[in-house]
């Protein structure tokens, strides 16, 4: 029941923004997201909340939501980032902006909590729509094209996934198990190898597009480049995790044999993405694009953790998703503020800004260090676990991943140095206002907290990871 309230709050807020006068839209959104955050804090104490209602009984579809170790912290990540994004948004963005933001928040909660494949798919597609309108209405000149690309690419993937979803249920029914979309019931189901491979790739492509993973990242540069900073933060911080989460939640329990079969191929592709993202990040002159491609590289890192098919790798990915979401979200927001103040995103146009804006520079440095994996900050713990998993399975890829970590430090610090340090060539800018500091401090605090106490997440995640994968474990899938 608690989860339903967690979903109902943003939905009610969304409707309220439509009815209330334009001026209070932001206030409504802020209150709503804060209530959501408080509600989420309550969820932490309940820990395993869930509901299980019949939705379309004729097709065996149940409205089944659970917050277990896999989803609990992603729900938290989205709750935090939505609060931050609302506060960082333009107060004059209009009611439709906040409406779509809250609808997005609603669908993200549903997506992360769903354990029925139909419910999962519904929210998976629903969240495309608010993002589409956010990109269409509140971004630059090329925003419309970016929105179109986002929608089409994602839907191409997810329509094939839809066929996959139905096919799984139908096969389960033909096996004599009745029509059901429950992931736990579909897992470990027997199907012919050919069909299973087709379905495996149908799902994988859908998830890889959303993440995005190389080479299916075509929508990413436009969408990240054109969207306003809070939206970028939500897309990169929360929505991209949905792709990885989908692989963990849906594919690992159902397609473990296929993962084993194609492991080498998957590792090679993911590694190529890791390298590609890093190299592209090095070449960019636009600081937002550096972060975007860096993020692409990090998504590949998470994929590597899964494809290592070791429990420590999976655990690392689970942890790294939350950590990366918080840090990259924060980083995009800081970049947004920087862009607001300087009016440019090109690295060469800025230099020595730390003189005039020391606080901004400090936060910038903090998130940069976080994303490049400084020990003590959460990125490090996640990457450590992933590489440990890779060493256990294929050591070659561990070596490449370790090397790319160094490159990551290079491209992130390059941006920081160029923008903040050196002689102050550009005109001075305003430093952060106290209100902006007010919501950056908790975010940074949270990052530090899970950085020095990763066990807070992993201890929760381990049992449910094992729970989610016990079929795979039973077949000796995970070491």
């Amino acid at each position, binding site marked *: 029941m608690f989860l339903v309230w967690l979903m109902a709050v943003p939905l009610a807020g969304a409707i309220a923004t439509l009815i209330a006068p334009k001026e209070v839209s932001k206030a409504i959104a802020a209150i709503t997201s804060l209530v959501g955050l408080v509600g989420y804090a309550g969820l932490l104490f309940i820990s395993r909340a869930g509901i299980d209602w019949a939705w379309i009984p004729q*097709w065996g579809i149940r409205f089944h939501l659970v917050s277990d170790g896999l989803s609990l912290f992603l729900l938290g990540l989205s709750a935090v980032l939505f609060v931050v994004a609302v506060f960082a948004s333009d107060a004059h963005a209009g009611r439709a902006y906040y409406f779509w933001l809250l609808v997005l928040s609603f669908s993200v909660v549903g997506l992360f909590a769903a354990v029925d494949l139909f419910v999962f798919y*519904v929210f998976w597609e*629903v969240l495309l729509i608010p993002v589409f309108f956010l990109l269409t209405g509140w971004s630059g000149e090329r925003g419309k094209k970016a929105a179109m690309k986002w929608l089409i690419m994602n839907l191409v993937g997810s329509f094939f996934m839809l066929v996959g979803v139905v096919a799984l249920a139908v096969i389960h029914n033909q096996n004599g198990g009745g029509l059901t979309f429950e992931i736990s019931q579909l897992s470990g189901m027997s199907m012919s190898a050919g069909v299973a491979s087709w379905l495996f790739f149908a799902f994988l492509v859908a998830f890889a597009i959303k993440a995005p993973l190389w080479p299916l990242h075509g929508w990413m540069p436009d969408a990240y480049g054109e969207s306003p900073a809070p939206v970028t933060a939500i897309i990169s911080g929360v929505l991209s995790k949905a792709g990885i989460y989908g692989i963990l939640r849906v594919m690992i329990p159902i397609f473990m044999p296929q993962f084993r079969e194609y492991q080498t191929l998957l590792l090679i592709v993911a590694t190529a993405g890791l390298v590609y993202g890093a190299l592209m990040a090095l070449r960019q002159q636009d600081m937002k694009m550096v972060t975007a491609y860096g993020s692409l590289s990090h998504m590949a890192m998470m994929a590597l953790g899964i494809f290592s098919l070791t429990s420590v790798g999976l655990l690392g990915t689970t942890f790294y998703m939350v950590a990366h979401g918080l840090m990259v979200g924060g980083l995009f927001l800081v970049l947004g503020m920087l862009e607001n103040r300087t009016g440019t995103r090109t690295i060469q146009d800025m230099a020595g800004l730390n003189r005039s804006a020391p606080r901004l520079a400090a936060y910038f440095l903090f998130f940069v260090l976080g994303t490049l994996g400084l020990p003590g900050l959460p990125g490090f713990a996640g990457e450590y676990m992933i590489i440990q998993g890779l060493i256990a399975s294929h050591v070659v890829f561990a070596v490449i991943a370790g090397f790319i970590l160094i490159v990551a430090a290079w491209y992130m610090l390059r941006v920081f140095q160029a923008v903040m340090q050196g002689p102050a060539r550009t005109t001075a800018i305003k430093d952060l206002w106290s209100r902006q500091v007010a919501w950056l401090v908790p975010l940074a605090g949270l990052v530090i907290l899970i950085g020095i106490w990763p066990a807070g997440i992993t201890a929760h995640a381990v049992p449910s990871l094992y729970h989610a994968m016990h079929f795979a474990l039973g077949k000796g899938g995970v070491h």
Partner: protein
Amino acid sequence: MTYALWPEYSVVIGVFVTMIAVMVFNRRSIQAYWVGLATIVVSGIITIADWSSKSLPVALYGHAVTVDAFSLVVNGLVLVAAAGALMIGWNDKRYGPDFPVLVLLALLGMMVLGLANNFVVLFIGIELLSLPLYILAASRGTGESGEAGLKYLLLGAFSSGILLFGLALLYGASGTLVFTHLDPAHMILPLAGAGLALTVVGLVFKLGIVPFHMWIPDVYEGSPLPVTTYMAFGTKVGAAAILMRFLFFGFSLDAGWWGPALGYLAVLTMVVGNLLALAQKDLKRLLAYSGIANAGYLLVGISAHNMFGARALLFYLLPYGLAVLAAFAVIQFVAGERDSLSLDDLTGLAYRSPWLAAFLTVAMLSLAGIPLTGGFVGKFYLIQAALFANQPGLAIGLVVGAMVGLAAYVRPLQRAFSKAAGESSEPIRWPVAGSIVLVVAVVATIGLGVYPAPVVHIVNHSAAFYWLH
């Protein structure tokens, strides 16, 4: 207690009462519209009463018609279509006082198609449906409207000719006119094959399946808006219903004859229809091509040829029709005095009238098949049907079509949500009756997407009922 054919009888009575109302009252009067609406409501109530009676199915007039749960569901659908069309064109001076009479006559044809069990009734249903629509299409009196009526008439007569000749050959091959007495095992094969092919072509013409779709865009574009709405919803229901009844009652055992052919046509239609929709600049034409593509989706339900297919088809008709009603109501409001709307005219709609833009969004997303709208559930059901029939090709074709279609449906939305270059023109008038249609259609579309279980139950009941044959 069953009132078997009383939904149809009440419509016949309603036709006469409406005509009397037109004659008695002033020609410019609104009474005819009220009588027409009352007829639809009464017929709907009797349909519901029929539904709850236990004595169905019942065959009447020497197996000429069969009233069963299927026909009652079709009744309900076409009643919704007629009510929607009537209210969108409510008391519009452009269409004259005879509009309700003709809507009721066409409604009768659609209802007859739902319960036909015999070649004669099939033909009568098709013609009862078409004749009033020819008139309605041409009733606007402008050049395009007349041309649309003419084109519809000629193509309609042509396809009816094909249909009739096919029926004649089938009659020769089998010796009976009744669907359920057709026995493919004892037919003269070449005659039966040729007859079946011609009959299916004739019906598919009416449904608007590629490559027999050429007439649809022109006719839809030229006809008055409420009439286009009626064609897009009601005619599709009628044609799909009769195609299904004919094939499932008569040739259920020999699905191999027609299943694969219809499957290929379905895939072709879904893809081509959506592709062509992508290129349209006029909103009515876009919806016409969308109607073609949706006819392809309907065909998936037929060529899957299983219980799921029949149910999915019946289910899909409802969200499709509701989306059509909503979209055309929006067009009617925005177009105002004019009778068509280009994509450019939509620019800035979200700023002129946010609610209209929102309603248009729901309608378009439902046509595109985005979750939490009825269209998604319908497509989901169709995919289930195709996969249960072990025809993954159909499912893939469906999603490929949906992907292409999505781009087509999103384009008007992007226009609507971008700022207009010039200053926006006068505010948009909301006619009361049309607004009711619009709001009901949009709410029902979302309702179907969020909680489809009751409708699924009804549909399953009706298709299961009829499958016993």
